[in-house]
Each structure stands twice: as structure tokens, then as C-alpha cells.
């Protein structure tokens, strides 16, 4: 029954320089269903959704909405057709407030004068109804990635869209938030809205989706009913081989201390309180220490202070015995620190540079890559080729691909490759596998464990409970800027961890004795 489908994308082909991102793909979305779109990094999911949202014009194929053929030339057309999209990389105006961003383009006005009050009422009502906690007056540049995400979702709900595209909405959310989002999605679907949902997390697909379409390297593999499938089958369809979900690793053998943080305090930009309060701990060679916590509890500010992006107001940081509290970012890097940043677009990459230039973002000064101040193209290219091969970074044109045009997951892989290959004594990894497909996660996890086994210290900051439990050797829980507990992943449970993260439990005494 064709009239069952709200959206039909038939035989869509989209070509980019050097790559066919979508190769004759057909996708059909039923009314009121939650339809997952699954595929490896660079498989063409975002591209397909951007075609539906009017950002790209396909070279071939047609789109039907409610059975009628439509032309979607730009996002305004999409909006008219009640299609809304939360992008993988948010499209927010940094220097605007949350509220201004939500109403941008559909500002309520009387005779041309903004009527923000009404807008605020509607936004607050929506945010309460769906439990999407935001501060309407905070500037987007100051808020956490999680809150930016919620702003994007509110933006879509504010426009009363009927067909909702979520491009990896859960990559940046905490487990609790993901749980809430799943509930929201279910209730939206029950209200008759149709949802296209991109995610790399198979559990989420199993939990909320009705059907799932799988893409691989730009080609359509098939669509399955979730009721009759399993995580293993989905990942096999997607990667073409079996994927291990657990991390293989031997017990940690910690040696001498690499990082010693004492009494670190960092002021907050959002409120007058301190974001990080008197934090002390150590990370030793050969162990992976994870800072767990709900997003917005000071992890971001802590890492900024640690890496030198922001100033701490008190405390001391020692790296390999050297006091680096007042060192510049470059000095810290030279002292043996590498850093996979939380926000890949803000800090991690120069999007307008080609991939190869991004892969040497810190190392362009190495004698290997420059002679007398002149950049040596050939060694850089060879080095980039090497990393691209080892870390399976997929792109249209290899080393010279502009990073902006790469898929989100492959951008992330580029950063990880660069930072791991620095071979620093301390690797700070903030949400390292955010946006990666299951196959890539498997590989990156093994690389991080490999770093540990090479005798490096790894400080992991993650919101992902599975990752926290699987990868770390010690867990420090951060709550409201304080370390409220130290846990051993082998003896603790997810539930207990959750209690600490929610601030319901603490064992600070133990943490103090450990350091």
C-alpha cells in the first residue's frame, strides 16, 4: 500500500568529487513509525538525509511526500513540507542565545517587532513537556554540547514539524538523556509524527525503532523489521563481518605517576560558582582512568584547564614531574600531553584545511615536516596516507579532501589518529568514540588499550556508560565539579555508577586515600 508511506526516496544518487555518496538508494518511511538508518562512517546517511532536507540536490531519483512527487530545493521547501532536521553538527548561531536560535527564521512578530515573550512561553512549555532542559538566555557558545543538542531538538518541535530527521542525536547525550529522548521519540511517533533516526548505537535501534534500513559504502543493503532481528545481525549487515562488542584487555599494570592534579579549581562561564572545585587525583602509566559523570558537571571545564585552553583559578597540575600549571598549550604538548577534544569542530579541526594539514596540526613544526620554516609537502602527504590507511579514514579524495566535506565519523577518526600517533605520555580522550560506527569503535578501543599497554597514561572522559565500564581501569565520578567517588569497574555495577553520577552517593574519603 503505497499511500502508507509519508516519505519515499526513490533511486537517489548523489555524487561528490571522488565518491558516490548515495548510489541508487531507496528509502520508504511509514507514517507514525520510527525508522532507523544504519551504516558505517561515510556510508552516506547524512548525505541522504540532507537530500531530503533540501541541502543537496540529487543527481538522480525522486522524492515523494504522501505519494506526491516533490522538489525540495532548499530547507525552506522542507520546512513547508513539515520536514525538520537535527543535524549531526549543529547549525546554531554561536553568539545568539538559546531562545534566539530556536525562533531564528520563524520569529513571532507584530508589525515587524519581535514578540519574544510568546516565543519564550512556547519554548518553555515545550521544554517542560518533553523534559528538554535548556537555559533560554544562555549564549550558545557558552553552553555544553548536550544543551546545544537539546536546543536543536526544540528548534524542530517549535516549528511543528511532522517528519523529523534526527542525525545522530544521541551521540552527545548522557544515558539518562538518551532514555528521555527515546521516550520523547516514542510519544512523538504516537502523536503521528514520522521519525528518521540515525544512530550508531544498536541498543537504541532495538529499543525504539520499528524498522531499520542499512547502507554500506553508499549502497542500499536492505530494510529489516526490528522485531525479527538482533544486534548481531544488524552489525553484520552494516559492516559485513561479525563485530565484538566487549573490549579485549588484560588487567592494568599501573606504574609511576604521569599526571598529578591537586586542588584544581576552575571558574564557570555559565554561573558565578566554580565549575570545577578542588579536584585532586593521579593517573599512572599503564592505566586508563575515566572521569564519568552527567554532561555539564564540570568535565568540560576540567579538561580545558588541564589542556591549557582555559585558566584555572587555583591548583597545580604536574605532568611527568613537571609543574605545568602555568604552561602554554604548546609547552604542555611538548611535556607529553595529547588531547582528543570534546568538540571536534570547535577545537579539533580546521574544517577548511585539507585532511593532510589537519593530521599535522601540532606536528607541522617537526623537522620531519618542515625545513627552515618551509613546509615539506611530500613527507606530510606520506604521513597522512599512512594514518589514513591505519585508521581507515574514509573520504572522497584522500589526503587532499577538505575536512569539511568528510563524514562526521571520519572527521573524528582523523582526530583520534592524529592524537594517538603523537605517542604522548598522557592521552586525554574526551568522548573519543562519539559518532563512530561499531566497527570503528572496536578498533579505536583496541588502540587506546594499546596505548595503555605501551605504558602511556590515559585519561578518558566519557558520558557513555558502556565505554566507561568496558574501557577504564579506574572510574572517577564527577558531580557538580567535584570528584564524588572512585569506583572499580570490575566490582561496581551500572546502577551504582548511576547513583554516584546523580549525586545520590559519594565516597570521597576513599578517593583521598587513593592519591
Amino acid at each position, binding site marked *: 500500500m503505497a499511500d502508507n508511506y509519508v516519505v519515499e526516496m526513490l533511486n537517489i544518487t548523489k555524487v*561528490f568529487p571522488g565518491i558516490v555518496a548515495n548510489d541508487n538508494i531507496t528509502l520508504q518511511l511509514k507514517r507514525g513509525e520510527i525508522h532507523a538508518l544504519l551504516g558505517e562512517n561515510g556510508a552516506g546517511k547524512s548525505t541522504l538525509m540532507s537530500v531530503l532536507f533540501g541541502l543537496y540536490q540529487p543527481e*538522480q531519483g525522486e522524492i515523494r511526500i504522501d505519494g506526491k512527487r516533490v522538489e525540495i530545493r532548499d530547507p525552506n521547501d522542507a520546512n513547508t513540507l513539515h520536514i525538520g532536521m537535527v543535524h549531526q553538527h549543529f547549525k546554531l548561531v554561536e553568539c545568539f542565545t538559546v531562545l534566539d536560535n530556536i525562533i531564528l527564521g520563524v520569529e513571532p512578530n507584530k508589525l515587524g517587532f519581535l514578540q519574544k515573550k510568546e516565543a519564550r512561553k512556547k519554548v518553555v512549555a515545550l521544554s517542560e513537556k518533553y523534559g528538554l532542559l535548556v537555559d533560554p538566555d544562555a549564549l550558545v557558545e557558552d553552553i555544553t554540547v548536550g544543551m546545544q543538542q537539546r536546543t536543536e531538538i526544540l528548534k524542530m518541535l517549535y516549528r511543528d514539524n511532522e517528519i523529523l530527521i534526527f542525525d545522530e542525536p544521541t551521540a552527545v547525550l548522557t544515558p539518562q538523556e538518551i532514555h528521555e529522548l527515546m521516550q520523547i521519540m516514542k510519544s512523538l511517533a504516537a502523536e503521528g509524527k514520522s521519525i528518521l533516526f540515525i544512530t550508531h548505537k544498536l541498543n537504541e535501534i532495538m529499543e525504539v525503532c520499528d524498522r531499520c534500513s542499512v547502507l554500506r559504502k553508499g549502497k542500499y543493503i536492505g530494510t529489516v523489521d526490528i522485531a525479527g532481528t538482533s544486534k548481531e545481525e544488524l552489525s553484520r549487515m552494516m559492516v559485513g563481518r561479525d563485530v565484538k562488542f566487549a573490549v579485549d584487555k588484560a588487567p592494568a599494570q599501573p606504574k609511576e605517576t604521569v599526571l598529578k592534579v591537586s586542588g584544581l579549581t576552575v571558574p564557570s562561564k555559565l554561573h558565578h560558582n566554580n565549575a570545577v572545585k578542588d579536584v585532586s587525583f593521579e593517573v599512572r602509566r599503564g592505566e586508563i582512568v575515566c572521569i564519568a559523570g552527567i554532561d555539564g558537571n564540570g568535565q568540560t571545564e576540567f579538561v580545558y584547564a588541564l589542556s591549557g585552553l582555559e585558566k584555572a583559578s587555583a591548583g597545580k597540575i604536574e605532568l611527568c614531574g613537571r609543574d605545568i600549571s602555568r604552561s602554554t598549550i604548546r609547552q604542555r604538548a611538548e611535556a607529553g600531553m595529547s588531547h582528543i577534544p570534546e568538540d571536534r569542530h570547535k*577545537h579539533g579541526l*580546521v574544517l577548511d*584545511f585539507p585532511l593532510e*594539514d589537519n593530521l599535522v*596540526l*601540532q606536528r607541522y613544526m617537526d623537522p620531519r615536516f618542515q625545513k627552515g620554516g*618551509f613546509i615539506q609537502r611530500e613527507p606530510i602527504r606520506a604521513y597522512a596516507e599512512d594514518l589514513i590507511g591505519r585508521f581507515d579514514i574514509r573520504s572522497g579524495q584522500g589526503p587532499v579532501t577538505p575536512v569539511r566535506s568528510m563524514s562526521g565519523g571520519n572527521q573524528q577518526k582523523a582526530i583520534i589518529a592524529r592524537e594517538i600517533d603523537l605517542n604522548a605520555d598522557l592521552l586525554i580522550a574526551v568522548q573519543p568514540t562519539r559518532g563512530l560506527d561499531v566497527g570503528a569503535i572496536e578498533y579505536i578501543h583496541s588502540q587506546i588499550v594499546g596505548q595503555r599497554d605501551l605504558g602511556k597514561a590515559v585519561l578518558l572522559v566519557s558520558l557513555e556508560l558502556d565505554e566507561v565500564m568496558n574501557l577504564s581501569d579506574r572510574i572517577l565520578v564527577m558531580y557538580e565539579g567535584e570528584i564524588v567517588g572512585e569506583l572499580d569497574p570490575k566490582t561496581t555495577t551500572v546502577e551504582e555508577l548511576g547513583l554516584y553520577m546523580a549525586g545520590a552517593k559519594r565516597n570521597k574519603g576513599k578517593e583521598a586515600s587513593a592519591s
Partner: protein
Amino acid sequence: MKKDTARTLWNDGTKTVVASLLSILMGVIFGGVLLFVVALCLKMPLSSAWEGFRIVLGGVFNTGRNYDAGSALTFGINARLIGDMLFRATPLIMTGLSVALAYKTGLFNIGAPGQYLMGTAMSIIVALAIDTSVVPAFLVWILAFLAAIAAGALWGCIPGLFKAYLNVNEVITSIMTNWIAANLVTLLFDGSRFINNVDFGKTGYTLKTATNGVATAKLGLDFGGGNANAGFLIAIVFAAAAYIVINKTTFGYELRACGSNKNAARYAGMNEKRNIVLSMAIAGGLSAAGAALYFLQGDVEFYWHTSMALPATGFNGIPVALLASCSPIGCIFSGMFMAYLTISGSQLSTFTAYNEYIANIIIAVIVYLSAFTLFFKGLMSAKKKTITVKSEDAKSKAGEEMKRK
């Protein structure tokens, strides 16, 4: 498949050049229309509008009127005008480079006029102050050139420092430093011994540097009695150097990284504050060097009452850079184009009823539209798409037929 997509999509460089040419064409057409409108308004015969249009197009290839043949306009190689074009292009290339380089670092150098003025004043003062009977003239020339660059660099530095350390927008500080320079320069010359008190009624001007024997070497470029000299070659060397610095050195890599994403540059350990200051200082130096190359020609006089007006050559660096899409090599050509138009303008007021003000407006319109390069580039990308669709269609049909066979 791969090859075909590569062929259907033009590379970025080609696109830029075509877009620049398109916008120039637009500007010229619009200028032509304006000539006719003005002719209509002033009740001039339409034939004079046509003549005007030919002069604007012909520019340096205008050889005057042939009074033996009904005063018809004649065109051909005019060596003097070509030389003048190269001479006028020299400072424009330099201010264009100045704006382009700052732009690569994400800065808008609207301070070029001020930097240009500082360079003017320093080059003239040094060139006149040092007695060439004591110090050899070529050494004085070099000293004057370097002094100009230093003054310009200092002047560029100031907005850079404000931007880097106090986060004050460089446009605002640049506008202020522009006017400070304008007044400072008047102050410097007022009552000084560098004023032309020799020729009657010329006290508004400085002495020519040639009066002290300081003049840029001609190197045989003064063909046809034009003003071209080695300065033009120096400007080309600067353009090439700017290209190399921006694209081939670690310093340029840092500048571009800061301009493109300053957070990432900071994250990577680059000193983005230092880079901002340096970039502005270099930009200032380039503008000032342009001024020195112009005034050290020797035979140019400088109207030193600058407190009321900023030099157009400084501001024109902006369209020169935009027209070149901020490519240093492109600045050579866009600088020459701007000079070509300037010559056209002076020819227009010499040979037709259009006065110099109308000529200026027409030139300004052409320049304005010429800066639409980016716009045309975007348009071209959109257009390419439909072309790609067709070829893809054809290809897939061919493919299907192949399969059937």
C-alpha cells in the same frame, strides 16, 4: 565514474578566475549603461556616450583623437599609458596584498589608508632629510623604503594588539588609526623644510624626492616617457613572496589556521595572539611599502594636508584583494586592472565631455561590481549541478543499455 565527476566539476582556481572575469564584465556593462544614462541626463549626444564606452574599454590602448579624420578616437599601443598603468598599479598591488594577507588570518585590514599614509610620510621625510652628497642616493632610497615599512608595520600593529589582547574589533581601531595617521602626517609636514616653498603656490605639496637625487631606478621601464620603474618589479617580488609565505611556510600555515578556526589554532598550541599582531604588522608594512614605491619614484609630489582625506589607494586595496579572491598572485592582475581603469578615467575626462567626477563614479561602479567574484562563484557552483545531472542521466542511460546488451 571517478574521472567523469572530476571532469564535470571545475577546479576551484579555474572557477575563481572565471568568476573574476564575469564580475569585471558585469561591471563594464553596467558602467556602459551609466555612461548612456549620464549622457541622456546631460543632454549630450549619444555618440559621445559610445565614445566614452570605447575609452573605458580601450583604456591604455587609447592613442588620442585623429584631428585629420573628423577627430575620431584612435586606438593602438600607447607606451606611455601602459607605463603609467604599471606605475599606478604598483601601490595598488601592495595595498591589495596587505588586505589579502590580513584576510587570510581572518582580519579585515581597513587600516590600509593609514598605513599607506605613514609609509608616504616616512619615505618622503627620509628621502629628503639625508643629504645625498654625504650618503649615496641608492642607500638613501633603501633607508627611506625601510623606514616606510617600519612605520606602516607599527601602524598595522596597533589594531593587531588591540584585537589580540583586548578583543577590540580591528575595523574600529583601524578606522581610528587611519584618522590619527591623517592628522599626524599633516602635523609632521606643517612648517617643515620638506614643503615645496620653491615653486610659487605649491606650498600644499611636499618637495619631490628627486630634488634630493632620490628616485627609483628606471631599469628601462620608462618606455614612451611613462612613469613605470623598478618599483613595479619590486611589487611583483612582494606578491610572489607573499604567496610563498602564505602557502609554503609554517608561518603561513599558522596564519591560515588562525584565520580559519582560531579555536583550533589555539588548541594546537599556536600563539594566535602573536599571529594576529604579526599579520597586521606585515599587512601594514606592505601598504607602507606600496606608498614608498609610489612616492620614491622621485617625480611625484604629495599633498600633505591629509587631515581631511584618506588616500584612495589605501582603500582600493580592498577591491583589489576581493577581486583577486585574496590570492597574492591574483593581486598583481587585479591591481593592474584597477590602474587600467584609473587611466581610462583620466582619458575619459581628457577626451570627452564627461568630467573627472563622473568618470570616478563610473570607475567606482565597475570596481564595486567587480567585487562580486564570490557571488558569481557561488552561482557557478549551482549551475554546474544541473549540468552534472544531465551528463549523469546520459551516462546511466548508456549504462543501462550496455547492461541490456
